[in-house]
């Protein structure tokens, strides 16, 4: 059965709220805290009830019957970009700021259709170096520019 956008979103958020409600019961309280009117679980419990209730309202009374259109979207590219961002997070320390960011930008430009190697390098590298200089010299925010194996000292 086709499902409307509102209902699908409601179902996803209902699952999130149920998981939240379950985890709220795992919050550990000290014995004296349990008897007080307000403790670390109070707000999460109220929110769980509200969240589950509102999700059910959205599912039961959807505001629109529009359906999710998956066609005509470049899902693969978005997936690749998400992987690229994650990889950037993993490489920024070992590769250093300049190499990892230049690679991130060049791969990003390439994935979106730029195929000229000179343009890839000429846009990414100077911009990254300039940004690094601005941050370290202008705003006193230091970030390691070089890969681990090129860094001096310990």
């Amino acid at each position: 059965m086709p499902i409307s956008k509102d209902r699908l979103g409601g179902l996803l958020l209902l699952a999130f709220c149920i998981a939240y409600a379950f985890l709220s019961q795992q919050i550990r309280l000290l014995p004296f805290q349990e008897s007080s009117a307000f403790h670390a679980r109070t707000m999460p419990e109220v929110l769980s009830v509200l969240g589950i209730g509102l999700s059910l309202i959205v599912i039961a009374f959807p505001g629109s019957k529009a359906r999710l259109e998956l066609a005509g979207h470049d899902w693969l590219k978005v997936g690749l970009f998400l992987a690229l961002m994650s990889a950037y997070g993993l490489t920024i320390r070992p590769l250093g700021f300049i190499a990892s960011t230049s690679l991130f930008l060049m791969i990003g430009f390439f994935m979106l259709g730029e195929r000229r190697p000179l343009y890839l390098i000429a846009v990414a590298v100077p911009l990254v170096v300039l940004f690094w200089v601005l941050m370290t010299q202008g705003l006193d925010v230091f970030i390691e520019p070089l890969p681990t194996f090129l860094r001096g000292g310990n």
Partner: protein
Amino acid sequence: MLEGIMIGLTTALSIQNLLFVMMGCLAGTFIGMLPGLGPMSAIALMIPIAATLDPSAGIILMAAVYYGAIFGGSTSSILINAPGVASTVATSFDGYPMAKSGKAGKALAIAAYSSFSGGVIAALFLLVAAPFLASVSLSFQSTDYFALMVLGLVAVAAFAGKGDMAKALLMTVIGLMLSTVGTDQTQGVPRFTLGMIDLVDGISFLLLVMATFALSEALMAILKPKGDADRLKEKEASENLGSMAVSKDEVKEMAPVIGRSSILGFLIGVLPGAGATIASFLAYGTEQRIAGPEKGKQFGKGSVRGLSAPETANNAAATGSFVPLLTLGIPGSGTTAIMLGALIGYGIQPGPRLYIDQPEVFWSVIVSMWIGNIVLLILNLPLIPYIARVLAIPSRFLLPLILFFSLIGVYFVSFNTFDIQLMVLFAIAAVVLRMLDFPMAPMILGFILGGMMEENLRRALLINNDSWSFLWERPLTLTILIIAALCLVAPFLTGKIREMKDRAYERTSGSGD
């Protein structure tokens, strides 16, 4: 007050802060012009820089970015009929037809003059209203603050429209839920950390804002790439602006519109949840109604009034939305919610005490609004033909850069690579929810108010010996909660009344036939 203005002037007119206003206006215009990136993303992108400055300079920079982004959004609305944000949708109704008829420069100039006037007049109202409201709100207790926060959250959802209200409320609750992640502030108990040490301090608001706005906007643009025709349109629009001169007759036509729309915009902006979008549509509708049949017909075809009204009102509303932020510490919109988050990051608690404890921050924000608007007019207007070229930058270069600035903005604050992975996760969730038409702004508002709301509720219960009776025993708290309840019920009631009216009209017109 005079003393306050002097403090504000001294702070805001320092060379350093003037430079930040200029930089903020330019950066805001630049970012706001990019279709999809609105004031919220623009401010979020600036937070890492603002965090390195002193509080006054940081807030001045963000306020300037805010105005710049609104102006930038209007520019893309006028030139390519692509409003970056909802508040500039009404601008495109008459701005784009004007641009299409070869008067893009004139349309941009009218928008700039109207924005300037709306901003300056509203800042004058703010000057009077903010200290007054701040002195009144000094008598507020934690119970009232709790009720006010409920009102703020409910109002944002209520203005989402009848069909979307439940979704907006649900997103608000999701935001409140995310705010509970981390160590409980009063009892020191870890909550929802899933055993991860990186979550003990909770989720950073900057991370959430960047992931759900800037990052997801860029990902949405990758998901739905533009056609060649759109790109060509953007390139052409950015190159041929025409004359920017405005005639005397047009100024005469604009003047009363600016006066009315400034007042309307400011008042709407002060209301929590209403904001610039509603103000701009209301001002447009009001002017269309009072324009008379002849002038009314020009609306939608390039009317000067139709362009001036929403532009004035959205800027006036942006200024008005600072009233609840500065005086009550309660943001009335997603944008001011981000500003609140930034202020808290500085260790500043906005509210009535801000006016007394940190007058330099309070007044310099107000004074910087004037300066920001002047800078927008004298700096951005002549530069707009050059700034508009940003629309011609190919998206294959622009989108990876937006992703980079979003990721590095968060990383530069925490230097924790876990944050980048968390951003990716939130960005996935945001893209999915956006595809399903679930609004993001209520979630941010809920996230930012969550901690304060819990703290005020806890304090209220403590003061009232663990009794919930404060909800109905204290008149002020009760009044605010009743208003909140009315906000929830009002869309349904007005809908029902309209249905009944329509039915009655059909019946009478049917019997008349």
